């Protein structure tokens, strides 16, 4: 499972970090950092993060 975030779209809303903190996190300067190849067990949380991103910046590739 591969997670891609379109950084041109991302507005650092931080909603993904609330939905899937194991995969997405806001660093000290409030920029998004994320795990690009999370464990398969994270799929459901990644899908939740995709749902809550207000600008649909997160993509999932198998």
């Amino acid at each position, binding site marked *: 499972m591969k997670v891609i975030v379109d950084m041109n779209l991302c507005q*650092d*809303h*931080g*909603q993904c*970090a*609330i939905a899937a903190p194991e995969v997405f996190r*806001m*660093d*000290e*300067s*409030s920029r998004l950092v994320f795990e690009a190849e999370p464990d398969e067990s994270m799929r459901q949380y990644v*899908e939740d993060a*995709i*749902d*809550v991103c*207000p*600008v*649909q910046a997160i*993509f*999932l590739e198998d």
Partner: protein
Amino acid sequence: MPQTVVVVGASLGGLRAAEQLRAQGFGGSVVVVGDEPHLPYNRPPLSKESLLGSGPDVTAEELAAGLAFRPRASATGIEWLLGQPAASADLRARTVTLADGTVLPYDALVVATGLRPRRLPQAEPAAGRHVVRTAGDAARLRREVGPGTRAVVVGAGFIGCETAATLHTLGCDVVVVEPFPVPMVRGVGTDVGAALLAHHRGAGVRFITGQGVSELRGEGRVDAVVLDDGTVIVCDVVVESVGSHCNTEWLAGNGLDLSDGLLCDNDLHVEGRPDVVAVGDIARFPNPRFDDVPRRVEHWSIPGDSARRAASSVIAHLSGEPLEAPPFAPLPAFWSDQFGLRLQSFGSPGLADSVEVAEGSLDRLTDGAAVVYRRSGATVGVLLVNIPVARHPHYRSLVLASDQLV
């Protein structure tokens, strides 16, 4: 016979409901009916970056395509019937009838028909008057505005303020008219509203507060707005952002209380019916996080949260299994972008009886301010203005911590 779920309303709530039915294992037919011709698309940018970033020739199709949601990969085999409304429903016979007479029988019905903008009472003049809810609305507005356009925005709620900020950035000469003394008072309260008013004025938008519109003037096309005190504001366009109506007319005749959306229980069943659920802006449900009063919540986060629970309710009913789930207690989340300010709220600031500035100052919103909203001492909401996202979880946890749930 496979079971059929009919979803009426093809926007965020309808999409999330269809996705969740599949994600939670429903294998029957899912039919989504939508009166807009577009597949579900994201509305918030219509008053913000999409309105700002589009040229005057932009079409509704282009806007909707650019904002289209990407459905979950697991959401397969969903039938979309777009471009015509559900005209009526017979909840006893379990059918939905479309405008062209097509009758859709269902085993369970998901209502996701949302809201439409309220209009000023005066029907004429009709031209030059706008609302912002759909891609079509935004395209029509964009066509009529540009540098130097004189725009009056009536109503200073979130959508009105965002639209005013966007039109200002597009070079329009903007006046906002609001009957309350401060903007967004329902969402943020008087003190924060006053601070936002000062900020917006500082950015160059004229606000006339404490006054309503008594008349729209013009032959065929609006050319002036008359306020309660007789002030005349000459204008080229008017944007009406004066609240909304729930799209429930098509459910008339079924004995439902349609006075304010659809009255739901905590599992989103409509008035105790096991086979009818509501999601999104139209659902009036109790949130035990706060109390047992059913309320509608017009936040982008609610269609997703409510669709998840509503899908569970539907699947439990269709499979004859009891619904085993903790109380449905979503934490409402809302954001808004206005004049360089990013507002983010968690919880329901509107329920508060006291307000405290926990960080920063309301006099310098640009530098960041965090406001905590309490009711009877319990934190019911927070509003963060230009607070770095890394600190949002801290403030969000304040609302979670003072949960009324036991």
